[in-house]
C-alpha cells in the first residue's frame, strides 16, 4: 500500500500577502480558495474535504468551513505548526485513496502582521511548559538559537554560513514580484543586524507578514479533467519528536530524518534527481538542520553545503526559489507556500525565477520548535 500518485494538486493560490489590514483570517482564506478553485476549473460545490491549521479561533476548522459554506464529508484540522500543510497533503492522499473524498482544499490564513497576533507561544506556562517558561526563553526564536549554538559547538558551523543562506534566499526574492523584501542584502548586513538570541540575528529570522494560501487536491480521475497539468504526490512522510525544545532528543537532528526517509522511499527516487527544493526557513538554522536530516549532506556539513552561493539563483542547488519565509512572506505557519511554489515551479510558471526543466520537487515543512516535519515529493508525472 502506498500513497504514490494517489492524488494530484489541481490548483494553488496565495491571498494578498504582506500587510493586508482590510482583511480577516477568514477573508484571506476565502480569497485564496476562490483563486485556487478557479485555477483547478472546479466549483466550491465540488469540495468535499477541508484541511486547515491555525490557532486564531475557538474552533477554527468549524469556523472556516462555516464561513465558506462547506459541509465536508472529510475534515482534518491537524495543527502541528508550520508543517501542518505537508501533513495535510499526505492525509488528503490517504483519504482520497480510501475513497472518502475526491476534492480537498488545504487552507491557511493569518493577519498576524496587521493585528499583532504574535503572542501565540508566550501564554503557555502550564503542563510541560511550567519547567521552561519561567526561564524567559523567547519562543520560537530562542529554541532555534539553542539548536544553532549546539550545531556550532559540535561541528564548527559559522554565523557567516547561516548568513549566506539568508543572502541566497534574498537573491531569489529579488526575482519574485510577490516577495516582501527584495532590496540588496549582504552577509555583513545579516551579521550586523540586531542580535535577538545568540547566535541568531534579526536577519536570520523569518518575516512577520499577513497572508493566506490554498491548495486544491483531487483524485486521479478528476486530475484527468483539469485545465492545468496535474502535479502528482509521489512521496510523503511525516513525524514529530517533541513539543518543547528541552525534550528534543538531539538538537542537530530534526524529525525530517524520519519523514524524509519515508518520502524518498515512497517516491522511489534519489536526492540528485530533484530539480528544486523548498525547505521551511523559519530561521536560517532550520534550513541547515533540515538539509542534513533529509540527507542532502552529511551531519555537520550543511554550513559548507550552502556556501559560495550554492543555493542562490544560478547555483547548483536551487533552494527556496520564491524567496522563502526569510524574504517572501511568513504569516505564522508558512508550510502551505512550500507546496504552492513547488507546484508553480513544476508547471513552469515562475518567470525570472523559474528553474529550467523542473520535473521533480521536494517540499519539507517544519513546525513548532523543530518539533514536526512532513516532507512531500511532487512530480509532473
Amino acid at each position, binding site marked *: 500500500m502506498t500513497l504514490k500518485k494517489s492524488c494530484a494538486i489541481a490548483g494553488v493560490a496565495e491571498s494578498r500577502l504582506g500587510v493586508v489590514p482590510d482583511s480577516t483570517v477568514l477573508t484571506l482564506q476565502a480569497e485564496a480558495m476562490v483563486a485556487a478553485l478557479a485555477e483547478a476549473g472546479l466549483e466550491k460545490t465540488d469540495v468535499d474535504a477541508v484541511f486547515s491549521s491555525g490557532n486564531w479561533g475557538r474552533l477554527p476548522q468549524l469556523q472556516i468551513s462555516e464561513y465558506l459554506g462547506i459541509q465536508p464529508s472529510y475534515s482534518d484540522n491537524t495543527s502541528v505548526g508550520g508543517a501542518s500543510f505537508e501533513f495535510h497533503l499526505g492525509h488528503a492522499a490517504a483519504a482520497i485513496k480510501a475513497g472518502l473524498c475526491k476534492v480537498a482544499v488545504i487552507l491557511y490564513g493569518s493577519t498576524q502582521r496587521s493585528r499583532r497576533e504574535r503572542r501565540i507561544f508566550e501564554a503557555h506556562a502550564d503542563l510541560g511548559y511550567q*519547567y521552561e517558561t519561567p526561564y524567559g526563553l523567547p519562543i520560537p526564536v530562542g529554541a532555534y538559537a539553542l539548536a544553532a549554538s*549546539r550545531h556550532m559547538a559540535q561541528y564548527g558551523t559559522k554565523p557567516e554560513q547561516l548568513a549566506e543562506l539568508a543572502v541566497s534566499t534574498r537573491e531569489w526574492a529579488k526575482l519574485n514580484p510577490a516577495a516582501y523584501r527584495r532590496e540588496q542584502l549582504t552577509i555583513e548586513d545579516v551579521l550586523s543586524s540586531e542580535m535577538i538570541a545568540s547566535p541568531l540575528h534579526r536577519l536570520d529570522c523569518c518575516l512577520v507578514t499577513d497572508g493566506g494560501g490554498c491548495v486544491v487536491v483531487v483524485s486521479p480521475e478528476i486530475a484527468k479533467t483539469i485545465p492545468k497539468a496535474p502535479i502528482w504526490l509521489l512521496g510523503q512522510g511525516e513525524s514529530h519528536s517533541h513539543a518543547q525544545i*528541552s525534550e528534543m532528543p538531539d538538537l542537530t537532528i530534526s524529525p525530517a530524518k524520519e519523514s524524509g526517509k519515508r518520502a524518498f522511499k515512497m517516491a522511489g527516487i534519489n536526492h540528485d534527481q530533484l530539480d528544486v527544493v523548498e525547505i521551511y526557513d523559519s530561521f536560517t538554522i532550520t534550513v541547515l538542520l533540515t538539509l542534513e536530516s533529509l540527507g542532502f549532506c552529511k551531519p555537520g556539513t550543511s554550513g559548507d553545503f550552502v556556501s559560495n552561493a550554492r543555493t542562490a539563483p544560478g547555483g547548483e542547488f536551487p533552494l527556496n526559489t520564491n524567496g522563502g519565509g526569510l524574504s517572501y512572506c511568513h504569516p505564522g505557519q508558512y508550510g502551505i507556500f512550500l507546496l504552492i511554489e513547488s507546484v508553480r515551479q513544476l508547471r513552469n510558471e515562475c518567470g525570472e525565477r523559474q528553474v529550467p526543466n523542473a520535473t521533480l520537487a521536494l517540499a519539507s515543512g517544519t513546525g513548532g520548535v523543530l518539533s514536526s516535519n512532513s516532507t512531500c515529493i511532487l512530480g509532473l508525472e
Partner: protein
Amino acid sequence: MPEELPDPDSIHYWDGVSNSELRYQLCNGCKSSIFYPRSICPACGSSDICWKVSSGLGKIYACTTVYRAPPKYKDKVPYIVALIDLDEDYRMMSEIINFGEKDVSVGKQVKVIFRDDIDGKLMPYFTPID
C-alpha cells in the same frame, strides 16, 4: 484554560525546589531517568516510577544569550538560557547566573544554585564550576 500549578505531576518537583532540592524521576521498569515529571515512562511505558534527588551537577548542552525577551523579562536582558545535561542522564532548561568572568559555553560544567526569580519564587538556576 491553563492548568493550575503545581499539578499532580509536578507537585513533588516544586516541593523539592522550595526546599533547595532538585528532584527527578527514575523508571523502575527500564531504569531511564525521566524529566519533566510524568505519570508514565516515555521510554518504556511503565507506570512504576520513583523519585530521586539529583546531585545538581551537569554540563551545558546548548545555550543562548537572550537580547529580545518576552515582555515579562525585558528589563533583564541580556541573560543566558541553557539546556543542561545532568549527571543523572536527563536534560532540563535553566538560566546560567553568577558567572562573572567565567566562560559560559557548550560543554562547560555547571551546578545548581537556588535563587528567587522575579516573582519571588525559589527556582533552580545553574552556575559554572571551576
